[in-house]
C-alpha cells in the first residue's frame, strides 16, 4: 500500500538523519522524502511516501511519533489532500521537429519548458505521480538524458487538517 505521511519536525541539524535512520534500522522503505521549512521557521515539514502493509504502516507512524524531535505525524488520504511532485527531465533533441512536438506535449501537460537547445530541452512538470508517469511514458521515446524529482510534497485539503 502506497502511503503519504506528513511529519512536522523540529527544524534543527540531525533531524533528517534521525528520521531516515529510523526507516533504515527498522527495515522500512522510503519511497520518496521531501523536506522544507514551514510558515514557522522553527518547524520543518517532511513528506514521506512509503510502501508498507497496514501493520507496518501503523508501526512506522508510532515509531515516528516516538521520536522526540517530531511534533506531528499524519497519514494523508489521497482523496483528502493535495499532493504533487516536481519533476525535471532533460530530453534529447534528435531532429528540429522534436522541439515542436515536445513543446506541444508539454503544453498539453501544463509543463514549463526551459533551456531549449539544438540537442536537448528541459521540461518541468508539477503533478501527481500518475500524471508524471503518463508524461514519462510519452517522452521516453525521445530519450531522457537526465531526470530530477523532488519527491512528493503534500498538504491536507481545507477542513481535513485534523484527520489521519
Amino acid at each position, binding site marked *: 500500500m502506497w502511503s503519504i505521511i506528513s511529519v512536522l519536525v523540529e527544524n534543527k541539524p540531525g533531524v533528517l538523519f534521525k528520521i531516515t*535512520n*529510523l526507516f533504515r534500522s527498522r527495515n522500512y522503505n522510503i519511497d520518496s522524502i521531501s523536506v522544507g521549512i514551514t510558515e514557522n521557521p522553527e518547524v520543518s515539514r517532511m513528506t514521506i511516501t512509503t510502501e508498507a502493509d497496514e501493520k507496518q504502516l*501503523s508501526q512506522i507512524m*508510532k515509531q515516528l511519533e516516538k521520536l*522526540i524531535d517530531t511534533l506531528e505525524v499524519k497519514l494523508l488520504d489521497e482523496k483528502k489532500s493535495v499532493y504533487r511532485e516536481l519533476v525535471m527531465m532533460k530530453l534529447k533533441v534528435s531532429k528540429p521537429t522534436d522541439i515542436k512536438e515536445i513543446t506541444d506535449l508539454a503544453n498539453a501537460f501544463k509543463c514549463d519548458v526551459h533551456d531549449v537547445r539544438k540537442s536537448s530541452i528541459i521540461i518541468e512538470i508539477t503533478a501527481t505521480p500518475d500524471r508524471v508517469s503518463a508524461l514519462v511514458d510519452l517522452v521516453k521515446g525521445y530519450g531522457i538524458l537526465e531526470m530530477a524529482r523532488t519527491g512528493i510534497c503534500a498538504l491536507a485539503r481545507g477542513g481535513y487538517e485534523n484527520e489521519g
Partner: protein
Amino acid sequence: MEKISGARSLMIALEKEGVEIAFGLPGGANLPIYDELYKSNIRHVLVRHEQSASHMADGFGRVSRRPGVCFATSGPGATNIVTGIATAQADSAPMVAITGQVPSKMIGRDAFQESDIIGITNPIVKYAFQPMSPGEVPEVVKKAFYIASTGRPGPVLIDIPKDVQQNEAEVHFPSEVKIRGYHPWVDPDVTQIERATEMLLSAERPIILAGGGVIISSAFAELQSIAELLMIPVVTTFKGKGSFPENHPLSLGPIGMHGHAEANKMMTEADCVLACGSRFSDRSVGTFEEFERNLKIIHMDVDPAEIGKNQTTNVAVVGDVKTSLRIMVKMLIQKAIKRNGESAWAKRVKETKDYYRENLKIHPHPLAASKVLKKLREVLPAQSIVTTEVGQHQMWASLFFDVIHPGTFFSSTGLGTMGWGFPAAIGAKAAKPDVPVLDIAGEGSFNMTENSLAVSVLEDLPVIVFLLNNFTLGMVAQWQRTFYDRRMIGVDLKNCPDYVKVAEAYGAQGIRATTLDEIGKAVQTAIKSNVATVIDIPIDPQEDVLPFVAPGTSLKDMILPS
C-alpha cells in the same frame, strides 16, 4: 551575572539533579570536566574500562530508578560506552552518559580521538545532545535527566566539545523544562481499562504476563492485588522476573526460551492474557503467530509504539502500568469481585505446577545448576540484589533462583550483554550499600569485565561474584551440541585463568567451593566479611539448560529434560 565555564555549569547542573556519584575514566577531551569534578561533591568512581562505567551507571539507574551517570572521553572512550548505552536502551534503563568531544572547530576534520558519537549512537539512545556553546549546558542537562527518567526510561547522551567545556558564559539554570515533541505520560483511557477488566472477567482461562514495565513503574502491589482478587496465575517475562514473588502460590515464573515448564505450558493453554509492561520479545513468546493464536491479548504499556508491534492486541491500554493497574484494582473492588480459586482453570494450573515441580528430571551431578542455585537462595537474604551475566548461568538463574522480594533481580535481558552483571552489581551496590549484592556469573562473561574487581575493592563497593564455572562458553556449547551435531568450536576456555588467584591479585577474596556445603559457607563468609569476593564453583560443562524452546519454534514445542 557571573560567567562560568561549560564544565562548571555541567557540574552545578548535575548537582542540582541530585547526582552524588558518577562512574568514568578521564582523557584528553574531558579534562575540563574532570577538573570541575575535582572541585565538586560528586563522588567519582574510576573504572578500568569505560564499558564498565556505563554498566555501573546502568545498574545504579535500575536499582535507584534515577539516571546513573557515566563519563568518557572522546573517540575510543566514547565508543567504549556504546555497548553500555545499547544495553540500557534495550532494557529501558535510565542513564545519562557524558562524553568529551574534540573542540568544535576540529569536528569533522578527523582529529585525534575524534569519533562521531552522536551519529554512532543514534539508533541506541533515547536522545542525544551536543551543546555547541557553554550557555546551553544547564538546559541540556535538565532535559537529559527529564528524558532519561520519564515515560519509558532510557539512555541519553550528552557530547560536549572541549572548547564548550572551557569557554565561559552567563548561564541560567532552569527549574523545569518543556519539550514540545515529548509527552512521556499519557493518562490511561479508563474506558479501555473497563473493556480490559470485562475481557479478563469473562475469560475461562485467564493469565497475567508481567514484564519489566511492572518493575520500572514499581507496580508490584497492584499486580499482586489483581492476581489475588481474581486468583489468576502470574507468569513473567525474563525481564519481569521478580515483579511477582516467585514463592507465591499463583506464581508460575518466567515464560520463554528457557522459561519454567509450568509457565510455558499454562501460557499456551490460556485464553486471555493481561500483559503488563511487556514488549512480547521473541525470546519470551516464541513465534509471534503461534503465540497469539486463540489468545485474547490485553496489553498495558507506557510506550504506544509497543502496542501491536509484535502481537495483535484486543484491548490496548497506553499509560503508566502502575496507574492503569491501580484503576483496574479499584474497578474490581467496586464490583466486589473476589474469586476463590475453585475454578477448573485454577485446579488445572495447580496440578500442572505441582506436576512439573515434582517430575522434571534433575541433572545428575552433585553440583547441578538447580542444586547450586537453590543452595544460594537458602543462604542469601531475600532483600539482596542479584544481577546476572549472560549465558547458561543466567537462564539457570531464571529457572532455579526464586526472586522473593519484587525488584531485586536485574539482568541484561534485551541486548544480552556478557560482562554486564559484575559492573552493574557494583553500580547497584552504590545505589543500595546496605544490602548484599551478588552477581550470578559465568566465567565467559566474567572474563569480559573482571578488571572491575579493582573498582569493587578500591572503591569499597564490595559485591559477590557467584561464578558458575564450566570452563566453557556454555550456551554456545549447548547450541553446538544441540543444533550442530556436537561440532564444538570456539567454546573451550581451558580452565584459564584461576579465578581465586585473579580475585586475590586484585586484593579481593577468592574462594573455591566444590560442595553445596562449601558454597553455602562461602556466600555467608562473603556477606559477613563485606569485601569483594569471587566464589569459584566448578560445575559440569556437559549440563544443558532445560526446558528449552528452540529458536523459531513456539512455546508448546518446549523440550523437557529427559
